[in-house]
């Protein structure tokens, strides 16, 4: 046994490594990125020859992990919460095919939207796919759950969704790791007679019935889970359901001595037995959960239930992450008042780094836009989303990965001209290429600006597999070579760059402009 100071992300990674993982697949996304980075930096993972390279997007990563599971080995796929929207097709259907080697689908949610565009709760996805969900309450549990999740997945032949939250993913704690290292599974793909991975309707129907039939076993698994715990308390006026890390806030609020019965909940579907006891013994039940009111909504039912308290009843804020004070307030514990925020404190938003190539690209774009009063610029997900802030105020939208190109095309279809999509190289290969293919097919009058900085910058500089090959990719997709323009975003090229953007915006057909210069952060790191 050894002790390490690990992020929740890292604890899970080390747990998976110790439990015989053969491959990790992922696309970077805050707060999940550090899982893959841990494998990439780990000498142990190298020695064990664990697959640990980035994937083009979450859907691809999900399918690669399922392929490894099909082959009989233990695999993990990691993503941020909105990444599961991209991977949902593979994820939901992996519950229909079932798995072979253990498969963990790790999804890191971001309540309070520290670095995200929504605070969707991945527990809904596990319920939707009818597959188990684990939600560690601590870094130690994240470590311990990895091996448990692989075993559970292999026992049930289902993917297991591992739900993390920002405050666990990005918080370090002392973690005890095991000296026992499980061997990797042998290569053992299903035999020729196995048809369950072929989701033709006749087979899918059988599989789906089998999945429905497994649901009682899932509930029984939750009832017997070492991670779900009923802690009795003398004061039964109120009972508590404490999900994942919310359990810690409860303990903190009561100084470790909660007088009420508590169901510590870290495995779903809901454990009926423990829940029935809590509901039977307590007059009302407070549900503490980070993210959306997933459990609370189920307990309240569609008609409401005054006994169930939480985010929907107003005892806790409807949105944003919890903290020990909010939990203490929900129980009306005595607290000293907080000072009023000082009027001297101003908002300090993130900004593009000094020397960032996007600054020069936006300066050129802003100047070119002066000639086109009706122009609309559709943005995308990355550092360059900061182009929405002053002094640029250059983009009108930022929705989801790849949306810049497809939204520009849709707006152009409606008559917007010029319509510009602005997207980074990694986002382009994640989800922009398919939208561009549509624009090629219709020769849509849009201008796509690809900011190729040779990396996935926003998440800290991960490899982007299409970097440096943007022109070839666009030509391969079918963009007319004459309207694939390239420039280097530097102040000395400003006038020429403005001219290129102007020309292509005026062109009533599809054009792609590639602004290519390496991210200042990755460049600095290499020089060190």
């Amino acid at each position, binding site marked *: 046994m050894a002790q390490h100071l690990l992020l929740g992300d890292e604890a899970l990674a080390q747990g998976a490594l110790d439990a015989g993982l053969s491959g990790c697949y992922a696309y970077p996304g805050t707060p999940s990125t550090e899982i893959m980075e841990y494998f990439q930096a780990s000498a142990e993972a190298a020695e064990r020859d664990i697959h640990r390279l980035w994937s083009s997007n979450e859907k691809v990563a999900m399918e690669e992990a399922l392929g490894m599971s099909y082959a009989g080995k233990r695999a993990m796929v990691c993503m941020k919460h909105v990444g599961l929207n991209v991977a949902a097709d593979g994820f939901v259907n992996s519950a229909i095919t079932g798995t072979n080697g253990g498969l963990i689908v790790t999804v890191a949610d971001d309540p309070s939207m520290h670095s995200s565009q929504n605070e969707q709760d991945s527990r809904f996805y596990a319920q939707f796919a009818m597959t188990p969900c684990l939600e560690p309450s601590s870094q130690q549990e994240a470590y311990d759950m990895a091996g448990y999740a692989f075993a559970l997945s292999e026992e049930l032949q289902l993917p297991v969704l591992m739900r993390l939250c920002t405050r666990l993913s990005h918080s370090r704690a002392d973690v005890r790791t095991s000296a026992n290292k499980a061997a990797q599974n042998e290569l053992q793909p299903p035999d020729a007679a196995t048809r369950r991975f072929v989701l033709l309707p006749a087979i899918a129907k059988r599989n789906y019935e089998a999945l429905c039939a497994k649901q009682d076993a899932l509930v029984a698994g939750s009832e017997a889970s070492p991670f779900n715990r009923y802690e009795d308390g003398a004061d039964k006026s109120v009972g508590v359901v404490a999900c994942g890390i919310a359990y810690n806030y409860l303990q903190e609020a009561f100084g470790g001595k909660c007088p009420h019965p508590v169901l510590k909940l870290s495995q779903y579907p809901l454990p009926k037995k423990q829940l029935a006891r809590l509901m039977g013994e307590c007059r009302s039940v407070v549900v503490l959960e980070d993210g959306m009111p997933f459990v609370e909504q189920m307990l309240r039912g569609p008609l409401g239930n005054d006994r169930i308290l939480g985010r929907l009843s107003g005892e806790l804020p409807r949105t944003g992450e919890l903290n020990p004070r909010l939990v203490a307030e929900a129980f009306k514990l005595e607290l000293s008042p907080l000072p009023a925020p000082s009027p001297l404190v101003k908002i300090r938003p993130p900004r593009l780094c000094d020397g960032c190539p996007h600054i020069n690209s936006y300066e050129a774009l802003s100047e070119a836009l002066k000639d086109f009063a009706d122009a609309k610029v559709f943005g995308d997900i990355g*550092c360059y989303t900061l182009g929405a802030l002053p002094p640029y105020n250059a983009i009108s939208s930022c929705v989801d990965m790849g949306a810049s190109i497809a939204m520009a095309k849709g707006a152009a279809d409606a008559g917007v001209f010029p319509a510009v999509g602005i997207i980074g190289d990694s986002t382009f290969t994640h989800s922009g290429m398919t939208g561009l293919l549509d624009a090629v097919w219709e020769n849509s009058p849009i201008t796509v600006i690809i900011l190729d900085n040779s990396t996935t910058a926003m998440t800290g500089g991960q490899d982007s597999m299409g970097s440096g090959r943007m022109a070839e990719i666009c030509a391969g997709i079918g963009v007319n070579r004459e309207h694939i323009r390239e420039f280097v975003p530097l102040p000395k090229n400003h006038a020429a760059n403005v001219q290129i953007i102007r020309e292509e915006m005026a062109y009533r057909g599809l054009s792609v402009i590639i602004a290519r210069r390496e991210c200042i952060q990755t460049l600095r790191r290499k020089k060190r």
Partner: protein
Amino acid sequence: MKHDIVLAGVGGQGILTIAAIIGEAALRQGLHVKQSEVHGMAQRGGAVLAHLRLNSEPIHSDLIAPGSAAIVLAVEPMEALRQAESLSPQGVILTNARPVRNVSDYPELDEVLAALRAFPRNLVIDAEQMAQDAGNARAMNMVMLGAVSPFLDFPDESLTTVIRDAFARKGPDVVAVNLKAFAAGREAALAVKR
């Protein structure tokens, strides 16, 4: 032993290095540690913070409840003030006085510093100047680490040992500058700590 410390600064100033060194020193003493950090978008020059909790008993929450931190340790004055809500009424606020003016509406520095000096227990120092005097302005975060050190009842040398280890691969000169910066911050804090 129990310490709840909120660290604050601007993305890129190095608060995570401070937190990592304290955390490592605490771990070596067998203390429990929880350290919640900001990664992602805010690291690009935005306001950043970290919650660092040390305890001889197991720690429940990764977050420090607003109004309960014993120490706010900041490397930028407006960021110190932003985290004032975290501080317990008996807490101490320690900050570098040198501003990072990357917003157009940055307040009058004198007013910010006056507001910080109005806290019953405070230490406002020009850590950047002190680091420069020690040999490198970038060792500013080590000055602030030194400034917090008297408030942590760690055994002598426990922090400096980790500093040596952390900077060892950069050579003895870098280690020396960082230790000198640490000592300067510590001295300044000892002068006001009663």
